[in-house]
């Protein structure tokens, strides 16, 4: 064993961290998120343990729905990364392909991924825990549709960042969505959050879907208000994020970043 070879590799990695904010942030990111999410879950259980019926129903349902959002986002971002890794972006953007067509293709890929993953997860839940996600009833359809759109919003946003900042921002493809998890109130109700965080969570369409899911499961009442919020927020944010994607493409073309994004 030679120390100089080991230190050479350590220095090589430190060089990466020295110039990469996303890499440095990642060191703190996951422990922080774990603390926030599990902290709120603990708070929820401590406060409402006796009043909450069917924990398994809540948690498994939430987990399956969260994974749909996650796969929807991944469907967009990973499709872009596949082109970046294959050094194929130049072939695509020098063709008649429009940015909107590129997004439409990645969104379709995302729907296909969500469909397959949902079937697998729902089947496993029945097999291992005798839990049927269909217990949510007919509301499952608008819930899933809205979560897929929220996944697209996060996916397009992340893709724009990777396009703008290059390969060192790749880590966002896996980490960005989890930034939204604490304010999506996946495993606990919005009221567990401090007031200031509740205000932020209100602007997150996913939070309204998970609130809606808990309402349906605990009271059976139609979650019309939650759905209305989610649809309006998703519509506005989707339009905004697509406009931002177009702006990013134009900026990258102006700065010559589109041809260097894979370097």
């Amino acid at each position, binding site marked *: 064993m030679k120390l100089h070879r080991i230190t050479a590799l350590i220095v090589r990695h430190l060089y990466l961290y020295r110039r990469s904010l996303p890499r440095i942030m990642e060191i703190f990111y996951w422990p922080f998120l774990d603390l926030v999410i599990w902290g709120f879950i603990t708070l929820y259980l401590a406060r409402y343990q006796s009043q909450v019926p069917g924990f398994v129903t809540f948690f498994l349902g939430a987990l399956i729905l969260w994974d749909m959002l996650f796969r929807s986002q991944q469907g967009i971002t990973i499709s872009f990364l596949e082109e970046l890794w*294959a050094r194929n972006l130049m072939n695509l953007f020098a*063709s008649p392909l429009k940015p909107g067509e590129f997004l439409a293709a990645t969104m379709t890929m995302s729907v296909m991924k969500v469909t397959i993953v949902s079937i697998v997860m729902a089947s496993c839940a029945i097999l291992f825990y005798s839990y049927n996600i269909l217990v949510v009833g007919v509301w499952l359809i608008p819930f899933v549709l809205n979560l897929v759109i929220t996944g697209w919003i996060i996916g397009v946003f992340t893709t724009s960042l990777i396009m703008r900042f290059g390969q060192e921002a790749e880590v966002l493809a896996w980490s960005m969505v989890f930034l939204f998890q604490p304010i999506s109130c996946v495993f606990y109700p919005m009221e567990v959050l401090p007031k200031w965080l509740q205000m932020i969570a209100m602007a997150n369409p996913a939070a309204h879907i998970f609130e809606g899911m808990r309402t349906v499961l605990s009271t059976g009442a139609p979650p019309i208000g939650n759905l209305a919020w989610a649809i309006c927020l998703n519509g506005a944010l989707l339009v905004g994020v697509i406009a931002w994607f177009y702006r990013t493409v134009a900026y990258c073309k102006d700065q*010559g970043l589109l041809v260097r994004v894979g370097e």
Partner: protein
Amino acid sequence: MSTSVLKVSDLTKRFGDFTAVNGVSFEIRPGEILGLLGPNGAGKTTTIQMLLGLVTPTAGSIHMFGLDLSTHREEILQQVNFSSTYISMPQSLTVEENLWVVARLYGVSDIARRVQDIVKKLEMEEFSGKITRKLSSGQMTRLTLAKAFLTDPRILFLDEPTASLDPDVAHKIRSLLKEERRSSGLSILYTSHNMREMEEMSDRIIFLQRGCIVAEGTAQEIIDRFGKADLEEVFLKFAREQRQSSS
């Protein structure tokens, strides 16, 4: 009415304080092969990237087939293609799968026949079913050329298309390009660091240095103008001048 298929006027690209391309103007006529020469950093690649709509010009205009690229991107790029030693294609797909994807992207009709024709034309039969990751660099170059020919373009931008090919395959590619130009009136913008190839292929040559056109004409006209023995000597003169001015 312009007879050129490509008309570039006062094309300029600045990245902050650095001017990569500075007021470049040129035309390509139908069926013409125009050589774009210059040392590294002269602005060749940035020029081609602007012609492909990958980089937005700071000033100037690009017209192809009488249409402005800034307002008719889709119609123009439908009739244009490119190949470069420096690009790649999805590595996990087979050669034929890659060609099918490109054909669909450009809306090529009768894809199966067209892919078969192109594979035959570029003598790719023995590796057309191979995964792209496993191709040699010469085979990869032929794949990117096949991608460029597949869509039946009216203008082809070729950035060092024969750089990694053995002399025999490179000769076949050059013959194919000349034949395509003869039979279909294909216009080509060609860059290479092989000066003999440039002399053989180009009807006209443009020399770029520090983003500006410093010479234009047939290979012989340029050689005579600078009193050099061949194009390589002219190239060396410009490359050394550029290096000296940068240092």
